[in-house]
């Protein structure tokens, strides 16, 4: 049996790493491309949300490449994500790929179901094995995302356009190929070094925060790599969602460094109840960004996404109350790169002009000379 699973940004590295450690065979589908999206759109229900279509495309391409089973995260609602795997299993069967789909339900909600699936996949392993390997894979995943987060912060200071992206790619592949715990730690240090060695220039970089739906934020192919575009335009970028922050069961997010309560409390005056997905996080992180002196916020969401539309119904009020511009980008298979590019440019101009008019007090500004302030948070995790 060879498993396949969707990409979701760098999530495939984490999943693949863990499966390798547990001696489960797998096939990583080809990178998400126009073809992936076409396949997904062709077979998924027309009104389903975009991530379902893209990940369906990944499954199909994975099966074409030789996989004969799928693995996917489940969920208990109230957002559609929890029903993705079940729906995709049905779609695949309809189009002639009657493969078993292993659905990993969250162990906190369904410990037994989780255990059963684990045992089916690795009959010879115990939970202790899983825990031991998971800890190492996890560390790798967190480090990869810390590298990502750090690159977002320093890209705006690079002297040669694209040098940060190049360094980041090298750093991530170092981590990808590291196996033992010490190797992983070493690769991380080296990776940070690569990013630090990128030649920098001193310049004033206004801060832009990116918030929104999990999948769209994690998958650069579908979000048109907006973080890199803005970074290369000279903006300091942070984003709200990281895979490991999202899965992390503890309270403090390893990558952004915010605790769950901090985010939810920030959201509370505007959205006091959870709404599934990342709706409340979108509101909370927007407020935190604004309080930290960010001068513009980009909200990315799939068309018809429920939690994000709830957030989008509320964000204009926040934008008004704090006088901060927001850019809303609704993404699906019909979104064109050209349109997005123009809107990003217009938004970037707006933020820069407001910045130059000195709307913010001096102390909230950052530039490379103050680089000591820019740190990948919590470098030493255990």
């Amino acid at each position, binding site marked *: 049996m060879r498993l396949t699973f969707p990409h979701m940004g760098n999530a495939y590295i984490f999943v693949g790493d863990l499966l390798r450690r547990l001696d489960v065979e797998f096939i990583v589908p080809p990178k998400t491309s126009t073809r992936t999206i076409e396949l997904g759109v062709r077979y998924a*229900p027309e*009104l*389903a*949300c975009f991530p*379902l279509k893209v990940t369906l495309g990944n499954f199909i391409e994975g099966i074409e490449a030789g996989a004969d089973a799928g693995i996917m995260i*489940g969920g*208990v*609602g*109230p*957002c*559609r994500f*929890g*029903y993705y*795997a*079940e*729906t995709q299993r*049905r*779609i695949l069967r*309809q189009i002639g790929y009657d493969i078993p789909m292993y*659905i990993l339900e969250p162990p906190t909600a369904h410990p037994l179901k989780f255990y059963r699936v684990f045992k089916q996949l690795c009959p010879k392993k115990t939970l202790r094995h899983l825990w031991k390997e998971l800890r190492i894979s996890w560390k790798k995943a967190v480090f990869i995302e810390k590298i990502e987060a750090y690159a977002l912060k320093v890209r705006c200071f690079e002297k040669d356009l694209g040098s940060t992206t190049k360094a980041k790619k090298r750093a991530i592949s170092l981590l990808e190929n590291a196996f033992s715990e010490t190797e992983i730690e070493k690769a991380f240090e080296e990776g940070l070094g690569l990013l630090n060695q990128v030649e920098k220039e001193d310049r004033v970089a206004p801060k832009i925060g990116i918030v929104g739906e999990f999948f769209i934020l994690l998958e650069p192919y579908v979000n048109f790599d907006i973080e890199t575009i803005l970074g290369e335009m000279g903006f300091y970028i942070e984003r709200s969602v990281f895979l490991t922050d999202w899965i992390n069961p503890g309270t403090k997010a390893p990558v952004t460094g915010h605790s769950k309560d901090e985010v939810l409390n920030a959201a509370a005056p*505007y*959205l*006091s*109840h*959870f*709404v*599934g*997905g990342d*709706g409340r996080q979108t509101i909370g992180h927007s407020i935190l960004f604004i309080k930290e002196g960010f001068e513009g916020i980009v909200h990315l969401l799939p*068309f*018809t*996404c*429920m*939690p994000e*539309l*709830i957030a*989008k*119904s*509320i964000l*204009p*009020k926040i934008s008004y109350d704090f006088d901060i511009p927001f850019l809303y980008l*609704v993404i699906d298979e019909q979104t064109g790169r050209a349109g997005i590019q123009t809107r990003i440019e217009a938004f970037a101009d707006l933020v820069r002009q407001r910045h130059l008019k000195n709307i913010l007090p001096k102390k909230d500004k950052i530039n490379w000379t103050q680089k000591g302030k820019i740190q990948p948070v919590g470098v030493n995790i255990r």
Partner: protein
Amino acid sequence: MLGLPRALLYYKYGLLWETFLKNLGIDIVTSPPTSKLIVEMGLDVAESEICMPVKIFYGHVKYLIEKQKVDAVFLPRMVAIEKPAYTCPKFLGLPDMIQAAFPEANIISETFNRKKGLRSYYQSYINLAEKLGAKKWHSIKALLKAEKISYEFSKKLHSGDSFSEAINKVKTKKKDSKIINHNRSNIRVGVAAHSYNIYDEYYSLNLLNKLKSMGATYITPDNVPHNIWAKYSNKLPKFLFWTYERELVGSAFYWIEKGMVDGIIYVMSFACGPDSIVQYVLEDEAKKFGIPMLTIVLDEHSAEAGLITRIEAFIDMLERKKR
């Protein structure tokens, strides 16, 4: 004066809410049935990509505030009305969404979450009444009355009355009189849909009456008791975590298994999250049983002529199949 928007879950719990509030001695007013004006008001304030039923809800709130000059809007947060499942994310965020769009409005809200236990669920009513200045004892009495009426109402529904018949009977305390059906076609369809998608006559383009005038009889998920749809929906291999979709799928399974319907009409709103998935799942299941299913997607541009043609064609097809 406290205003109730005649939209979304009003079509489920309106009777209960009205009775409860009236018995508390609160002066209430309910917005009129959806009209062109109300829809326009909704489109004006609501987020542009959100599902139409929510936009219509915004319209009713705006109408209550601007035209009916209410002092406050009644808007409970219905998180879960049964232990295992949620309603829809939109209902979880609705009070906050409305507050953001109408910052000046006074919104009377309280969270109803059956997942936290039956006691806390009923406590929510007491808390709500307290916000309106009612004493605990008073609110318990009002709640009992409301529950009684709503029980009678659901009994009427379960005995086969349509939504409007049941409302009329309960409100006017009319005795049951069995209406004899004179059907030319005796085609029976199950209409699987959220209550606000089919009982809002303006938005649904009067779909149910159209079915009737074409000579078909229909049955809706409201006619199926909770325990039955819950049991039948659990036949799905993966537990469905949205209550109203459970109701819809469970009812459909029940109708199919008992041979109660010749076909199913699935009515959903464009941009509806849960239905976009569940429509597919139900279609997949209905295929296995050879039960035809017609899906109607409503949005602000739905046209009457197109709807009639599609339903007629569907009914014709069912008739041919039956012969």
